[in-house]
């Protein structure tokens, strides 16, 4: 699935729509895109739509930040940026087993990711134009994509 975005506002709308499809589910979302592509914007908007009250800011330094969704389930935000070139088991599987998990720079922990996940990649165009590609890799992510179209 490909979504064309023309403004920051549309990136936020896309995130809210994704949020409405994953609410109450257990899923891992990998989020790819260059620095400045809009990963932070997407995650903040997703969290807001899931009812996270506290400020969602960068997890680059601590690698993992966890929040509470409105329904009490966790929203884990992982950034593997600093793990490039290392292979360490940080126990992420505990996060993957509950609530919603957004993973940035997931290629650096590829071997630890669950099989069924929603892959979102944001490709930068001029100004605020973005091409967002969404792929599913299993039954849960597939059903989320079907919900998106309903």
């Amino acid at each position, binding site marked *: 699935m490909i979504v064309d975005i023309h403004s920051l506002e549309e990136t936020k709308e896309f995130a809210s729509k994704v949020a409405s499809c994953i609410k109450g589910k257990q899923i891992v979302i990998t989020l790819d895109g260059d620095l400045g592509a809009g990963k932070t914007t997407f995650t903040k908007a997703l969290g807001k739509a899931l009812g996270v009250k506290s400020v969602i800011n*960068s997890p*680059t*330094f601590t690698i*993992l930040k*966890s*929040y509470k969704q409105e329904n009490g389930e966790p929203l884990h935000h992982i950034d593997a940026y*600093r793990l*490039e*070139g290392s292979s360490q088991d940080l126990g992420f599987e505990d996060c993957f087993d509950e609530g919603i998990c957004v993973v940035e720079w997931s290629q650096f922990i590829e071997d630890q990711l669950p099989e069924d996940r929603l892959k979102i990649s944001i490709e930068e165009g001029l100004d605020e134009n973005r091409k967002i590609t969404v792929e599913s890799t299993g039954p849960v992510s597939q059903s989320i994509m079907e919900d998106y179209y309903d």
Partner: protein
Amino acid sequence: MIVLGIESSCDETAVAIVKDKKEILSSIVASQIDVHTEFGGVVPEVASRIHVENISYCIEQALQQAHCTMEDIDAVAVTKGPGLIGCLHVGVQAAKTLAFAYHKPLVPVHHLAGHIYANELVTDLKFPVLALVVSGGNSELVYMKDEISFEILGQTQDDAIGEAYDKVARVLHLGYPGGPKIDKLASEGKPVYALAKPKTQGKYDFSFSGLKSSVLQFVKRQERLNQSYDMADLAASFQETALNEIFDKVKAVLNDYKDIKHFVVGGGVSANSCLRKKIEELKLQYPDVIFTVPPMSCCTDNANMIAIAGQIAYESGRRAGEDLTADSGWEIQ
């Protein structure tokens, strides 16, 4: 009073012994950071396993260098949060074990409070205090009406300032760590390039993500148009915009909170020469406020600050029992 402090919230395992908040008897930091310049960054060994390997050695070394035994220690302080949960657990378990084996009071400390109280090493805080904490993982403005109350007036809505420095340094191929490299390069240039000014909703909040993207887009545009640019000028432009973001908010707070007596800084980014210069300028504008910028040794992640914060928390009556657990998202209070 002699306090043993333990810090293991992220990359470092650290243990320190501090007497009466002022005298560092020993301070051991086992850095997990292994510099991999080929990646333009560092690969932190944040796995709890590494902290487990280091912690006993750090405790032993700290006691030995301080010429102390556990009998001489009056309290054990430990970072309860925030941080990476697996790392925090190691410090908390070690602190609990020491406290209960030797019948010492156990005091939980907030990482951010540690950065602020580190200033006690060089000054006596005069309340109300406004603290600016700037590092690779923090960018906060904290108002303290007294020694034990913390109010976060502003914080970053996206990247921490130190993280923005590192990422911009990577875009400019300057290597790691980015902070000192950009600082040095910026001193040779002029802030002539217009970069996106950060936008935030809260009056005292920060944002650095848009600025980082703006540097990246500037570089890409110049390359696309086949136009050259001056690296030093770009570094200066970035630094000026980033620090103005900080100082505009600091000034806004100082103007709105007339009762503030003391302004202090904490965190690794306070080593930045331009930031220090801007604080000197601020001093002249606010003659009634005391300004303290502690030496670098107090600013980075270490356990001195946890021992000092521990003594203050102890004196205010804070204690923890055997049910103490690490809290990765602990909010300061």
